Every structure is written in structure tokens, then in C-alpha cells.
């Protein structure tokens, strides 16, 4: 019983202390709940990214600012189904950080960059959910030291979630450009020659090039004895990039001269397509 009474007195004293602390906390700004409030002022400056076109692979960015300096910055991006998000390989590929460093200095700006692969079926603007996590070392009173922690020397992890819009606009220009239009090869030779192609704004999947009706005496082959040649960098010709396909040209049966070599170029944009091209072949 005595123990219970002492316990009751302790409980009463504890309540008094707790009540006093609760009353004093708003004045002191030191309640546990207040200490966990994000006072960093981290926010996105960007509400709308650069526009993309259907079928495009693009690196986009979101600019951030803050009132206080924060560290350990990490950003992840969620996109609608069909839109693929990837991150810089320099961080392992699971997230992105700020361009300049992992810290955002208060009252400055920096940006996070990420890559989107937008399918051809995505013809309207879409939202991205962008989540950034960071550490604040400012004190529970919101004050920060220039280096290290604030007045309480604690580090607090926070996150900010924003939604940004990615505008989708129709592609303009050709699907691709054939950069190499002429090849000069020795007579009686048998070697690979490179043809360069540049994609337009969007990616072209399953990009292949093969020769059409051959000039008399010419024998053409492809890497790996395949029925056609693919870009050196992979099966797709990535939008706004240049890649090369290789054609093996055996001219041992040809006379010196200038010939037109027709090309059949196949790829998949929104749908499978086939285009024709030519390359001027100079045998000398």
C-alpha cells in the first residue's frame, strides 16, 4: 500500500512535470513533436519539366531550393505505368541526388536528374511523383551552425513529396537521318564498312539495315551472318543519337566504278515501319 501511495505521489509529480513541460514547450520550441517538424523549407522550384515526345528517352530535371542546408539528398521518381524511370549509374542506379553534391545549401538551388523512357502509347501529359529525402542538422529551434549540427547537435531525416507534370507533345521531323550516303571501297576487297544513322526525337526499336537489289558482282554480308545489320550500340536507335551499322562489302566480282546500293531500313516506332535508302558505292 505504501508503495502504491509513493507510486501515486510519483505519478502525481510526474504529471506536474509533464504539464509544466507541455505548457513551456510552445515557449521554448523544444517539444519532441516540434523537434521533428521539417523547418528546412525544402521545396521544388520546378512544377513542369521539359516536354517529351511519345517514344522518347530523355534525361529530365527538377530544380530544388531550401531555406536551410540539408545533406544526404536522395530522390526517387514514380511514373505512370509504361513510363520507365532510371537514375544515374554513378549512384548505383537506385536513386538520384543533386547535380553538384549530396547537399543543398540553404538559399541556393540545385537539381536532380533522371531518365524517362516514354512509350509511344503515351500521348498526353502525365504526372511524376518525386520524393526527396534528406538530413537536416539544424537545431530544434531551427537555427543552424555553419558546419555540423544546430543547437542540439542532432541529425533529423525528412522527406518532401511533390508532383511535377511532364508535358507530351507530338514529335516533329523525320524518324531518322541516314548520315552516310557514300562509301568508297577498294576493288577486289572484302571488308566491313560502317553506315551512320541518326534517330529523330524518338527511339526506334528493332532498327535493322540490309541491302536491297545488289549491283552485279557485289556480295553483301552482315555481322554474325545475320540477315541484316543492327546498330553497334544495341537493337534500338536511341532518339537524338547517332549509331552505326556494318555492311560487309565483297567487291572481288565488281569492276571499278560508281554504283547505287539500295538499302532496306526497318524499325519499330509507334508501329513497325520499313523505309528505303541508298548509298553510293565507289569501287576504286
Amino acid at each position: 500500500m505504501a508503495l502504491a501511495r509513493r507510486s501515486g505521489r510519483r505519478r502525481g509529480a510526474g504529471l506536474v512535470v509533464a504539464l509544466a513541460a507541455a505548457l513551456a514547450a510552445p515557449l521554448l520550441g523544444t517539444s519532441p513533436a516540434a523537434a521533428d517538424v521539417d523547418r528546412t523549407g525544402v521545396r521544388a522550384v520546378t512544377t513542369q519539366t521539359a516536354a517529351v515526345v511519345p517514344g522518347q528517352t530523355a534525361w529530365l530535371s527538377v530544380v530544388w531550393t531550401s531555406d536551410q542546408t540539408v545533406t544526404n539528398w536522395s530522390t526517387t521518381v514514380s511514373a505512370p505505368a509504361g513510363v520507365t524511370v532510371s537514375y544515374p549509374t554513378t549512384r548505383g542506379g537506385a536513386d538520384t541526388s543533386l547535380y553538384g553534391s549530396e547537399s543543398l545549401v540553404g538559399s541556393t538551388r540545385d537539381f536532380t536528374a533522371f531518365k524517362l523512357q516514354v512509350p509511344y502509347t503515351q500521348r498526353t501529359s502525365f504526372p511524376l511523383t518525386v520524393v526527396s529525402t534528406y538530413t537536416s542538422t539544424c537545431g530544434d529551434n531551427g537555427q543552424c551552425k555553419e558546419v555540423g549540427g544546430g543547437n542540439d547537435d542532432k541529425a533529423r531525416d525528412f522527406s518532401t513529396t511533390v508532383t511535377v507534370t511532364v508535358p507530351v507533345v507530338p514529335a516533329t521531323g523525320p524518324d531518322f537521318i541516314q548520315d552516310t550516303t557514300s562509301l568508297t571501297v577498294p576493288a577486289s576487297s572484302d571488308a566491313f564498312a560502317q553506315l551512320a544513322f541518326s534517330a529523330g526525337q524518338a527511339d526506334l526499336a528493332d532498327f535493322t539495315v540490309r541491302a536491297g537489289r545488289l549491283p552485279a558482282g557485289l556480295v553483301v554480308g552482315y555481322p554474325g551472318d545475320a540477315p541484316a545489320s543492327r546498330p553497334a550500340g544495341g537493337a534500338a536507335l536511341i532518339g537524338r543519337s547517332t549509331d552505326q551499322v556494318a555492311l560487309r562489302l565483297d567487291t572481288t566480282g565488281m569492276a571499278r566504278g560508281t554504283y547505287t546500293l539500295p538499302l532496306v531500313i526497318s524499325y519499330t516506332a509507334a508501329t513497325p515501319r520499313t523505309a528505303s535508302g541508298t548509298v553510293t558505292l565507289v569501287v576504286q
Partner: protein
Amino acid sequence: MSCSDRRPARTVVALAALAVLGTTAACGAEEPATGPAAATPSSTPSSTPADATTGRIAEIEFARQCTVASVNYADEAQFTIELDTHLAAAGFSHEQWKQWHDALVVSPELVTQFAEISAAGCPAEPTGRTPADEEPAG
């Protein structure tokens, strides 16, 4: 002594500080950034004073922050190529930018200078607003 009177001396101090940083921030100096957070400072730099040189770098950086979100690139490296193009046009190297950027975290003068340059706002933004004044995006 007025601020303008002190400027030449402060410029010398700032350039000297950047030069010192250039010899100490080995990671940032020797590894050109190829993407976001590609390079991190290898040492804690000391406070760098603000001067005309740091102001010019801050102007380039702010201009980039105003435009970077409106451009998309096929290649991640284009972010750095674009920055380096503007730096080179102004006579700066990527290393100098990196040293300036790394110095921000411990240099209140550089932050104040950057904020002052940012105060005019981006061309598409209302003027007289600093980054700290802007509304949350989400």
C-alpha cells in the same frame, strides 16, 4: 573603407582561396562530373570570400538553374557539357565551378552573393523573389 575600396583586396583573397581549394579538393578537381553528384569533395574547404570572380560563377550557375528544367537531353553527360560550355565562354573551368560549389556549404558570403544574384528571379519568374520566397511546388 567602403565595399568598393575593399573589392580588389577581397578579389585577391577569393582567388587565392579558390587556388588553395584547387590543390586540396582533389576529387572534385581531377574527376570531371559526369552526372548528378558524380563528384564529391574530398576535404572540408574553408570559408571562401565573395568577389567578382565568385559572382560571375554564381551568375552562370543561376542562369543554368533557370533553364535546366526546361531542357531534356538524350544523354546524361549533356548536363555537364552544357555547364562547361557556359563556363568556358566566361573563362572558367569545370574545376573552378566545382571548387566554388563545394565552398558554398561553408561560405556564408558566397551564399549571400548567390542569393543576391538569384533575387532578380529567372526570366519567366516574377522579379524580386529569392528562392526562399517561392511557393512549394507540390
